[in-house]
């Protein structure tokens, strides 16, 4: 446990000792606010955060890989992985330490969007439950994308390659489940396969949590997504750490 904590602490601190955290926070907070108001937050005339959460998948497709790309690529490029993994730390502990540090960082970024809550509370009487599930869905989605990003960052020593691969993978996870994609796919694929693709996509699970429906299948989807990609990351890192 102490090894996990050591990696976690170091990683979280390193976000704030480099400009990464500040650049990320400024860009994320700007766009999360900008997109919300641009897409008719006032015109809807409803005191809820629907417009805010609706943009989260799009924003996270780009922002989460930007946080995760350096996790292992950098470590392998400068060789510090040799230092890290010759300390009494197992690959799994190191992977989990870094993953949770990045996740907590993203949770912090989400927490900093609190002025949105103040705004809707000021304008009307929002449903608190919906706001909570909206944030829960966003946190889970961030974790899912982060696990994907973690995996691709272990794949390549080059941060740009890691970034591009993670963005593509995250985009597929989101866009495969959009109604327009599914409609198109249903023109030539059997209905069973199309609904399977829809279920495997992150979009429908995020949408239902965000609507306030907490179902076991949605929560387990995110948990499995995270565990699967993290396990893949540990495996690939164990194989390629010294190459």
């Amino acid at each position, binding site marked *: 446990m*102490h*090894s996990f*904590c*050591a*990696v976690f*602490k*170091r990683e979280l*601190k*390193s976000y704030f*000792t*480099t400009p990464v955290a500040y650049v990320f926070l400024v860009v994320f907070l700007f766009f999360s606010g900008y997109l919300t108001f641009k897409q008719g937050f006032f015109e809807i005339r409803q005191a809820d955060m629907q417009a805010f959460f609706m943009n989260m998948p799009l924003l996270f497709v780009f922002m989460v890989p930007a946080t995760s790309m350096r996790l292992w690529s950098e470590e392998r490029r*400068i*060789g*510090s*992985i*040799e*230092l890290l*993994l*010759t*300390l*009494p*730390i*197992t690959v799994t502990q190191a992977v989990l330490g870094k993953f949770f540090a990045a996740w907590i960082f993203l949770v912090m970024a989400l927490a900093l969007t609190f002025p949105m809550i103040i705004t809707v509370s000021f304008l009307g009487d929002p449903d608190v439950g919906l706001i909570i599930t909206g944030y829960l869905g966003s946190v889970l989605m961030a974790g899912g994308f982060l696990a994907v990003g973690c995996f691709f960052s272990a794949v390549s020593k080059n941060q740009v390659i890691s970034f591009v691969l993670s963005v593509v993978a995250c985009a597929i996870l989101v866009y495969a489940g959009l109604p327009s994609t599914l409609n198109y796919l249903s023109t030539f694929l059997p209905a069973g396969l199309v609904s399977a693709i829809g279920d495997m996509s992150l979009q429908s699970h995020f949408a239902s949590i965000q609507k306030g429906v907490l179902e076991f299948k949605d929560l387990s989807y995110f948990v499995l997504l995270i565990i699967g990609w993290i396990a893949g990351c540990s495996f690939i890192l164990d194989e390629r*750490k*010294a190459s």
Partner: protein
Amino acid sequence: MISVNELRRNFGPIVAVNGVSFNVEKGEVLGLLGPNGAGKSTLMKMLACFQKPDSGTATICGYDIIEDPVEVRKSIGYLAENVPLYNEMTVGDFLNFVCDAREIKGKNRKQALDRIVPMCSVESVYHQTIETLSKGYKRRVGLAQTLIHDPDVLILDEPTDGLDPNQKHEVRELINNMSKDKCIIVSTHILEEVDAVCSRTIIIAKGEILVDSTPEKLKEEHQCGLDEIFRKITSTKAA
């Protein structure tokens, strides 16, 4: 304390380490000599449980490198060839991170830091970011990381590479002072270093052990300097 048994490692068609076996006891300083690409670093990486051997194994302080890698890493101090460090951290933060990872807490941590910081002469840069340090200081920080838990076994991959003559002398003094109650493996291709610190030397080339002897014996047998001996032995192998 270290017992290496038929370690073998290939990289594709290249044989890096080819069935190497030897033992090192407490109080010995083993100099691993060899031309570039001889397999020294690969061998050391395998002993530090960073790289997995294709076959064979080794035990360090009674722990097997394949079955108990975490226990092995707890009992060794390993200085990698290019001394990788976390450049954005300060020296103090970095050493505290290593203490965290090695579970050195409270009073023990204070004692460890009070011992290691003057020992590796890093007091003056303790609050400085690692990326701003000179090569010599970076290597000292690397050494401090290696020695902070006072390990019984030290594996040092070219510890004096790139240092100026004064710093080289300091590092050799450090190794000599510790040699009595530790088991140390040093890799190098600087032959004067073998004379200065090693009580035993193994010459390897192309992944195989060519000579396992002491520097004195070697000089006696060949009646010439280590430089010449090294050239004779390794060039016959290359031919």
